[in-house]
């Protein structure tokens, strides 16, 4: 076994894992916040995430068609695209809640779950329909912004593209803002109050429906931001791309303790790291017997182990006291 190689690629794998982890963390927030207030899993969130990526790619393609891609400064462009993606995904999430979940608020808990799965399929095929009519394409490619592809080659095995740093930076900023919003503002207090006890919160004069919509808006916007960053980082999206990252992010939310916001962030990063290390190291460590294709098996085995010993997730599920 080539120990030098194993050590040599370590920083690169760590970086790959962190990028993936932050992506999962951003998506996982949507699952966990909705679970916090409504105690149900919004399975349509994976499509809300990928809508952000589609809005982003459409804008960038239009900018490129107008010949402005390399003219506009990239931080401005990226900020604009992020804002548009967040707005689209956030509003879509609010609309989905209004149409597909609110009428079922008092139904047994499995009913909105089924509704969510239905919305997920509906959105997938809606994107496919719109894109095939609009662009006659299934796979869409993020236009390459050359300025973002500048690489810092620190060593033969370590190589940091500017793009990855931007993705990590954007994700960190987003998580920070959310953290401050939930913990340091009146709105955040209201969200936490609704999560704790809806009836009591409404007695305190909080507009519960408004707060629930707001939760969907914030969760959706985080998903949309993740979508844009996903597109910028990996480059290729299609209407079904959202499904697998969505599922992984849901797993990350459970891993961190569902309903728990810092838990979702931690869970996402842990899952991203597990996956990256498994994919890069499994075949090196086992001499090719287990290849990169076993990364999910490895990551999920670890997950099961963690959940056996900490059934409420790493940071614990948010416990609600219902009178």
């Amino acid at each position, binding site marked *: 076994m080539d120990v030098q*190689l194993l050590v*040599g*690629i370590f920083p*690169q*794998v760590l970086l*790959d*894992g962190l*990028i*993936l982890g932050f992506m999962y963390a951003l998506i996982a927030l949507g699952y966990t916040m909705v679970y916090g207030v409504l105690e149900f899993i919004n399975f349509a969130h994976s499509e809300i995430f990928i809508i952000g990526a589609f809005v982003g790619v459409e804008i960038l393609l239009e900018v490129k068609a107008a010949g402005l891609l390399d003219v506009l400064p990239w931080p401005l462009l990226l900020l604009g695209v992020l804002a548009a993606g967040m707005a689209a995904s956030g509003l879509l999430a609010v609309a989905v809640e209004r149409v597909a979940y609110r009428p079922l608020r008092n139904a047994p808990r499995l009913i909105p779950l089924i509704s969510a799965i239905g919305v997920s399929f509906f959105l997938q095929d809606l994107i*496919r329909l719109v894109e095939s009519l609009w662009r006659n394409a*299934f*796979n869409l*490619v993020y236009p*390459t912004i050359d300025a973002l*592809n500048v*690489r810092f*080659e620190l060593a*033969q*095995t370590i*190589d940091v*593209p500017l793009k990855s740093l931007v993705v990590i930076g954007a994700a960190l900023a987003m998580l920070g803002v959310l953290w401050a919003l939930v913990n340091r503002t009146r709105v955040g207090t209201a969200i936490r109050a609704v999560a704790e006890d809806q009836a009591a919160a409404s007695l305190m004069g909080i507009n519960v429906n408004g707060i629930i919509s707001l939760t969907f808006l914030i969760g959706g916007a985080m998903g949309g931001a993740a979508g844009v960053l*996903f597109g910028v*980082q*990996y*480059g*290729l*999206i*299609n209407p079904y*791309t959202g499904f697998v990252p969505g599922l992984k992010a849901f797993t990350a939310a459970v891993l961190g303790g569902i309903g728990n916001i810092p838990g979702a962030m931690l869970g996402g990063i842990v899952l991203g790291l597990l*996956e*990256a*290390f*498994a*994919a*890069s190291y499994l*075949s*090196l460590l086992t001499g*090719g017997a287990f*290849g*990169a*294709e076993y*990364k999910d098996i490895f990551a999920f085995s670890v997950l099961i182990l963690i959940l056996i010993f900490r059934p409420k997730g790493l940071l614990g599920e948010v416990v609600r006291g219902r009178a």
Partner: protein
Amino acid sequence: MSRYPARLTLAVLAVLALVALPAASRLAAQGKGTIKIATQSPLSGGQAALGEGIKLGAQLAIEKFKGNLEKLGYKVELVPFDDQAKPDVGVANAKNIIADKAILAVIGHLNSGVAIPSSEVYKEVQLAMISPANTNPTVTDRGYANVNRVCGRDDVQGVVGSEFAHGTMKVKSVYIIHDKTQYGQGVAEFFKADAEKKGIKVLGFEGTEEKSNFDPILTPVKAKNPGLIYFGGIYDQGAPFFKQAYEKGIKAKFLGPDGMDSSDLVKIAGKAVVGMYYTSAAGPASALPKAKQFVEDFKKKFGKNPEPYAAEAYDAAVIALRAIEAAAKGGKAPTREDVSAAIRKVKYNGITGEIEFDGKGDRKKALYFVLQVVSDNSEKWGDNKIVKQLTIAPPAMAKK
């Protein structure tokens, strides 16, 4: 009470429609009958570009050559099926196809992993399948009387690739990635076996179903610094893979099998794949004799360039039509067995060259190419440079 008659009328109409429609079609069929040729290829999803080409190629051939059968009193129709590049969908479609007695031949599929299980279904009724694109050896090595292909084989294609890597590219080491499908892993294994024989060092052999994030796979590749990366798979996965490899600063040369042969490869990967090589068992239209007319007709009718395998699908459909004509000779209704048997007797000089099938359905002489991507403009995919062109007979049939 007042709504009652309206409902009654509706119900009566519905029943009438149910009874009358099939009856009417049977009536029309009594002229002599309808003959249908089915296509099965992915018409939706990431590989739709190639799948659509197969359908359109067959459509063009049928419209052009159905006259002979129509003179005999038959109506000729094309029925396209979408297999979504998924084995389960292909098999479900195949069951629908064999249930429709008017279907006498299938042109398809794109993916060997779909063609192999689906052809098991066709075999139940000896329904002929002519494949324009399935290169996995198993497709014909099962020795079924109804299965044929107009393209080459992966056990040859893999070797063509490794020979090119060794002889022309002169690489010393290779890292092999495949997509874990019967096709991609198959051709990657043939490539690997022969590359090892020729003394090329295989630094890694990895399978992945990943479609977007190749970072963790590329990290060890970059560290091992191979001279060549071979991707056994299809462009919708290969293109983002090569793009990310390029963006990671990997300096290895790229090589792939015929799954890379679609203009979508450069649409997705852009300049990352300019200069890369791919082997093909279906040459670009420009390399084929008599292809000029085909390209013009295709463009005129569908308003776009034919994708790879459209010409093969065209030839496959012509062969199917000829076989049906032969089976219909003497005025009897052609059966599926007759058509399958007749296909093996067809000798046809098509746009992809002289086609004649051997005892297991392989082409007696198949064409193989090595091509180089010349431009990141997808419109110019047809101009890709032919670096090498070979005509190779299939390996001798293993005695059973």
